[in-house]
């Protein structure tokens, strides 16, 4: 577990699990991205699950950070799944024209881990 930033990053085997429970202000969002990437760098990681079920608001900046982090992780050989987005968050993002193309999503952690397993198996 990394203790640098305010958001704990858990490791299960070769998968990182991040559950965002507090509002992502700009500085926290930046710290989140840096922490996740350095955690990937430190040890071989194949998958990243980001749970955002605790967020009742996601602005375009946070959405961009989340999408970007996924793309950056991809460059480092890690597949990302975003799980637990709330309906009102999804509706707002789409209304703002921010569909987060290229980001894998799942309903909850369970479905997210299953999807990740599937994606990683396909990659091999």
């Amino acid at each position: 577990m990394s203790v640098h930033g305010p958001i704990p990053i858990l490791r299960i085997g070769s998968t990182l699990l991040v559950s965002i429970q507090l509002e992502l202000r700009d500085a926290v969002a930046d710290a989140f991205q840096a922490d996740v990437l350095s955690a990937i760098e430190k040890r071989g990681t194949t998958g990243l699950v980001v749970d955002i079920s605790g967020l009742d608001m996601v602005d375009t900046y946070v959405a961009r950070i989340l999408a970007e982090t996924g793309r950056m992780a991809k460059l480092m050989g890690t597949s990302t799944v975003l799980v637990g987005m709330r309906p009102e968050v999804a509706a707002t993002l789409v209304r703002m024209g921010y569909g987060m193309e290229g980001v894998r999503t799942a309903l909850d952690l369970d479905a997210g881990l299953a999807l990740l397993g599937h994606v990683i198996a396909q990659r091999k």
Partner: protein
Amino acid sequence: MDHRKYMTILKLDDAAIASRRAFFSISDDDLARLASLRPLAEKVTDAIVEGFYALLLGHPETRKFFSDEATIRRVKRTQREYFMGLFSGRCDLAYVEDRLRVGAMHERIGLAPTWYLGAYRQYLQLIRDHFDAEIKDPAQSREAFFSVQRIVFFDVALAIDTYIAANLEALGRHQAAIRELSTPVIRVHDRVLLLPLIGAVDSHRAQQIMESVLTHVVEAQARCIIIDIAGVPVVDTRVADHLLKTAAAVRLLGAEVVLTGITAQVARTMVQLGLDVSSMHTVSRLSDGIELALGMVGKSITNKGS
């Protein structure tokens, strides 16, 4: 609806009443004059009420509101109270509340404003005639009549406002009912939902559709939601855009949309308008859509052994 509810809807507080009073030119002198006319009013009240009901009972449209003698006796009594109320010398919250009670009652029995306004005309004429007969000085009679006219018009405005408020309230209730009926989400199978859309989709409804779809997907932990648009008469750029947005939002949740019920006409329109719906799975028939959706949750439809 209770008349107190109208007080709230029409935002009738002391300030609003003062503003209305000013507009209808009801001065303190008018109220004092009306109060001083009370003895005269008591004297003519029976004659005026009789003359008033002669009109109401003489016309087929208004006659039907008075089914029997007992009703007529009762309404005449109410009418006397109403008439004397004009000469109370008050024009405050209590007075308005009393007037709204009358307006709410007329709205409840379904007396249309036409007859209401016509009846008021008769009322004013009767008052004028009786004042002219009773008050010797023509100038004084004229002043007295104008004071009555002011408060009567004040009453008429309250009555019309009550009608409008009641109709708006009914409209709101109907819209709520339609809203509930407009997005019925059905559970087809474990983690597969179906939303059959029927009728035109405007942007207001499209927003409801999106909210309803997203909430249901999360609640049911659905993997897939089938949206059947066979019952949507016109699929234009706007409707397609709404559907695409919904599909994008559903994807953000981690589920997928299957669009079914695409008729030849709709397919032709979509292509001619250059609409790209490739982000959704699209099939023509609902049955194919169900099969596709079941496939997503690892199920399939097979024949029972022959």
